[in-house]
């Protein structure tokens, strides 16, 4: 341990830090007091649906991943390409050739 490094016991905090982090991950902003003085504020970076939290947290921890914040659900599309020619999917495959 470095000479200037301070250590604290869990009892010195207003809430258990582990529980505070868990609450923050659920989307709650949490302020932690140290010896009765507000000292740390945990701000959630995103909110995750409960049942899928573990999966989404795993994805969020992966470099380069921007995790969805909303449901991907969509209604059936109504727009159609007019006239003869390839479908949109076929055009994408053509563009790759």
């Amino acid at each position, binding site marked *: 341990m470095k000479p200037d490094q301070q250590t604290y016991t869990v009892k010195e905090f207003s809430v258990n830090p582990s529980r505070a982090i868990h609450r923050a991950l659920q989307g709650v902003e949490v302020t932690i007091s140290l010896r009765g003085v507000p000292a740390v504020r945990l701000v959630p970076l995103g909110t995750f649906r409960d049942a899928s939290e573990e999966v989404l947290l795993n994805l969020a921890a992966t470099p380069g*991943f921007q*995790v969805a914040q909303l449901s*991907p659900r*969509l209604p059936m*599309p109504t727009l*159609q390409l007019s006239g003869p020619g390839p*479908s949109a*999917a076929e055009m*994408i495959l053509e563009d*790759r050739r």
Partner: protein
Amino acid sequence: MKKLVYLDSCVIAKLFLLEDRSDEAIALVNDPEVVSVLTSDLSFVEVCGVFSRAAAQGRITMPQCQAFLAKFREWFLTATTHISIRLDQITMAGAAAIDLGIRGADALHLVAATSALGAAPVVDAFIFVTYDVKLAKAARDTGVFTSVVD
């Protein structure tokens, strides 16, 4: 059951344009067991490119194209887990293109999808969806997906 689904851009196009197999694509994203829909940032460019081409050919009107782009952009940015391709993944994709005999864009999609494997142990199924037969075969050959839909 918790599922992850990776969508190739040719599947995403069917979510916004009514054509053959649009119903299957919609069913995938509306499946309540799907935790997140994954795709590469490359899909955004590919799908925008198709709409631009359709407008240029007069197969949709310019207002339709602009309305689509606004709707698609919002969905892509907020409702998909989209994967930015890193330099090391570009190198991997180059090697995959040579080893598997697939096109560059196909290799980028495959590498982006496999980069989600860190999350795979906490899901029950990791499904790769494409309507490209060659890419589907390459995805099956990796052996890392629970199933490949083509």
